[in-house]
């Protein structure tokens, strides 16, 4: 076990005018760990995720990241070339809507291959073979490698987005409601897939979800967010089975049990 966390978020705030969307959030993410950010819409969990990735600049606070290439870097001060290099090699971002993470007018194979080409791969046969292997891994018929993703179902598109993100073997994957818009049966398949890939690749994941079942299945730890703040943090089973904060208790008691 390594001695320093992969990611250290300290007193992070994101303000939009008078609104504090994220308000003084601190947490650590360790290598190989899945942490779920839960809370209802508007609690700031997606804003927190997006500001860690650099889509939204934080107003205050710091994010220390232990990079393979650059050693420990402060993400809020990192220059753009290095941040973008990290974003397309060491990190991955899985959007809730796969259309935001895919090139819809390019083939499935090109979507998976793009990250490889972006990282410098220039051997067509190797790129093709990796794309085929990844389609198979995310349970998409490799025969559809040259089809456009807009001919795919929502579940297939999401699995394609995951293949596209994971093909460069990132260490840190940020997921924003990855099962959000999917039917329940499709969701189960995707969750199982994510669970296996996370374990096989030893990924560190920050997972935004409002579905406590998804958090239970994938995460070792949970941060409960309300109005931009983390009101409770702990082991997944502790937070879900013995929630301490009134808001956590409200969330847990609101879940329908089938």
């Amino acid at each position: 076990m390594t001695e320093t966390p992969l990611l250290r978020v300290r007193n992070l705030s994101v303000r939009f005018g008078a609104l504090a969307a994220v308000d003084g959030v601190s947490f650590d993410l360790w290598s190989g760990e899945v942490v779920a950010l839960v809370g209802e819409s508007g609690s700031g969990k997606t804003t927190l995720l997006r500001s860690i990735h650099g889509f939204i600049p934080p107003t205050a606070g710091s994010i220390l990241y232990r990079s393979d290439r650059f050693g420990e870097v402060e993400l809020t001060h990192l220059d753009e070339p290095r941040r973008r290099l990290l974003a397309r090699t060491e990190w991955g971002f899985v959007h809730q809507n796969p259309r935001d993470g895919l090139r819809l007018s390019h083939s499935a194979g090109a979507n998976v291959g793009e990250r490889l080409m972006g990282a410098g791969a220039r051997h067509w046969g190797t790129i093709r073979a990796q794309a085929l292997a990844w389609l198979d891994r995310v349970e998409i018929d490799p025969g559809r490698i040259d089809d456009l993703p807009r001919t795919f179902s929502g579940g297939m598109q999401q699995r394609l987005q995951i293949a596209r993100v994971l093909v460069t073997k990132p260490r840190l994957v940020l997921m924003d409601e990855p099962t959000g818009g999917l039917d329940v049966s499709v969701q189960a398949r995707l969750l199982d897939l994510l669970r296996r890939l996370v374990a096989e690749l030893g990924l560190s994941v920050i997972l935004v979800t409002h579905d406590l079942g998804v958090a239970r299945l994938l995460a070792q730890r949970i941060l409960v967010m309300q109005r931009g703040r983390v009101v409770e943090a702990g082991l997944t089973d502790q937070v879900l089975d013995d929630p301490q904060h009134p808001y956590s208790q409200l969330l847990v008691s609101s879940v329908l049990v089938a």
Partner: protein
Amino acid sequence: MNAISYNFAYLDEQTKREIRRALLKALAIPGHQVPFASREMPLARGWGTGGMQVTAAVIGRDDVLKVIDQGADDTTNAVSIRQFFGRVAGVRTTTRTEEATLIQTRHRIPETPLRPGQIMVYQVPQPEPLWRLEPSRAETRRLHALAEYGIMHVKLYEDIARHGRITLAYDYPVLVHGRYVMSPSPIPAFDNPKLHRSPAIHLFGAGREKRIYAVPPYTDVVSLAFEDHPFRPWKAEAACALCGSTDTYLDEIVIDDRGTRRYVCSDTDWCERRRAQGRPV
């Protein structure tokens, strides 16, 4: 008509100076697109106004001008631009590549090897090689600035996936001086190797898109490709019906209603002189 007199080469001196500054910057950063304030010319944008403004900015009284369109000196566009500069600059014009000091072109690089001191001026419809791949201009500029060219290969990847080889036949993207990916204007891929370490100066003007870029002499210009699918430009498997040439770029001409085809040199000057040297079919 005689009452109206134009400044030398049509544009005023201040405008020409501004374009020259953009050209110098473009030469200093090979392959990089430099914005410039594209002026109105006496023909519509999209008909070569970018090339004409560059020509107007660099032409001198001693220059000898050649204008080609699709390799030919005698098409409407080539003839009118040649006449235009004959009138507003009073320079000598020619159809012979080796005589010319300045060659404005659309879609071709002459077959006759260029020599030091010659200037090629290209009319460019679309200067941005990433334009079909990345819709945001702000983002394409960022991609150029950071040399993030992964998506450029996406297009080539798909071409090979679909056809088994790269079928892109013109406007084939190149990497200039190991740094910027550049659109060589819609010249055939066949002409791309002529840019590599060429002794001439190559200036590119996009009038509608308001961009200028350049390749200085003896600069590396490498066509993008994959290790296992190297750059192999397409050429018709035929000989010129007029001069018999097999190593030049040929135009395909349908000559009757039954679809009979004939191939002839696209470079009319080259073809005529080959025939004059007594090497007809």
